[in-house]
């Protein structure tokens, strides 16, 4: 791994705040998680009816990616040149519980499909037409070491040109998304230290 890659943008959503490259771009009023996510969606002013069908984890990852990619010109790359690698600790447990509650009554396929953590990746890929490498990993906490080393392997010559990676966690009472756009040119080197620093200082 002699090649150097760069963090060309990053986005955080937590504690009712949305940040893009360390700047707060939206602050929600105190409310429940679903209400906050909806207010971010409305703030972005995008019409995407599928958003309403998503579970909270998918909404969170989808919104964070919208903000992350606001200045990204994807036409520079082929769809298969762009990958998505996400991680969290709780998998899809929030959606799992909601689905299982529905089973007592009548099992809902619309809820069941979100009982997989990689569905958030699917939603991001559909929205942005990304077709490259994708993977969802579970760690106890944000594993900067794994993300920086593994995503660097994916960006080696002949592989991806760009990769969205990071952490997206949703529980019944809390949420946190910290996503990075990694490319082959930029100012901030893609290192364990740099992504750790961004993660740990995200929105307080």
């Amino acid at each position, binding site marked *: 791994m002699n090649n150097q890659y760069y963090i060309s943008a990053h986005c955080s959503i937590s504690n009712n705040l949305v940040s893009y490259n360390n700047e707060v771009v939206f602050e929600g009023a105190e409310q429940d998680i679903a209400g906050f996510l909806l207010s971010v969606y409305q703030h972005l002013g995008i019409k995407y009816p599928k958003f309403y069908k998503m579970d909270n984890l998918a909404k969170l990852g989808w919104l964070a990616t919208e903000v992350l990619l606001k200045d990204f010109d994807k036409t520079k790359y082929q769809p298969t040149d762009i990958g998505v690698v996400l991680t969290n600790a709780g998998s899809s447990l929030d959606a799992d519980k909601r689905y299982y509650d529905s089973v007592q009554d009548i099992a809902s*396929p619309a809820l*069941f499909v979100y009982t997989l953590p990689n*569905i958030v990746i699917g939603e991001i890929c*559909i929205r942005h037409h990304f077709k490259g490498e*994708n993977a969802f990993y579970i760690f106890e906490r944000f594993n900067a070491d794994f993300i920086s080393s593994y995503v660097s392997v994916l960006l080696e010559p002949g592989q991806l040109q760009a990769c969205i990676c990071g952490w997206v966690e949703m529980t019944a009472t809390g949420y946190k998304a910290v996503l990075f756009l990694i490319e082959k040119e930029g100012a901030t080197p893609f290192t364990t230290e740099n992504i750790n620093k961004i993660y740990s200082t995200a929105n307080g």
Partner: protein
Amino acid sequence: MKKVFLVADNITSPLGTTTAQNFEHLINDVTGVRQHDDKAMSDELFFASLFEKGYFQTDECWTKFEHLLIASLTEILYGVDKNISDKKTVLIISTTKGNISLLETEEPGPELDARIALHNSAKKIAQHFGFVNEPIVVSHACISGLVAMITGMRLIQSSQYDHVVVAGADVISKFVLSGFQSFQAVSPGLCKPFDADRDGINLGEGAATVILSAERPDGEVIELASGAVSNDANHISGPSRTGEELFYAINKAMDASSLKSEDIDFISAHGTATVYNDEMEAKAVTLAGLQDVPLNSLKGFYGHTLGASGLIEAIISAQSLRQNTIIPTKGFSKQGDANPVNVCSQLISKPLGNCLKIASGFGGCNAAIILTKSQQDIS
């Protein structure tokens, strides 16, 4: 590029607790799938491949999912000359739903959430066997097993680790069964992969483990030559209409191992026996120019074992390469019309060198790996 070898493997399924036992049953056309009447799982009768009740049970120490992983890991690690506590060894766990059946039986609360958490299971198991590095958990729907193997391969190729132990398991309970039933995706009988009259999946339980290593064992070896993952970017619960994205992964894997279509001796398909999955795979295989290559699906023997399926099917494929025997597709009898592929319906014995293993899943994900048999390295 550094080579990656399969140095040991295990399948723990209703068909047996070693790879050899499992392979023997497949040769003899024995399936683990049968009809079950279990009101705790389903009001209706259903077909699935399940462990006998009480064989692996959640107790105070381990969940059923953890017991399955431990059984598979114990069999493989016993007598294998690999230093697990080496800093250059890591454990990867593959699962789709892990401990989720606990939602059905245990009291809700933070303690249950912690017990379900996959990183806790992985950590406990890693400690139990003496792994020193933090384990990696892959949860990527039905391609989890192949993503775990591909991840392990890349970690070795990039010299981050010398040995990677990849273990996968899934348990079938009301949670998963009701979900597939809600999609009208479960067959009322034995599943019929690639058949013109296929009508849905059977689910299955199982665990499997492979040890990947940078160290070449003596004699004839199976190499994990390459692998690739792609996304359809089309629909979260339906496969691509064209198969182009699975084809992309197949093509990428074949390119990376410098193989042409005529070099592939057989294909181990995902073959879930749903109308759309099998059709999409047939399209992708055709796009790759592999429509005449013998292809099988093992779902008629194991059902769909979710996060274990990629591993179980890769291990059977490796055993096929060693034994020069392709396992037939149980449940297949009548060729569908659109995109005919060469579905293997009888045992085939012939010299085998290269296998393509593919899988696809919810979220629009696709994966392909190449397994290659090679003789003693004379260089």
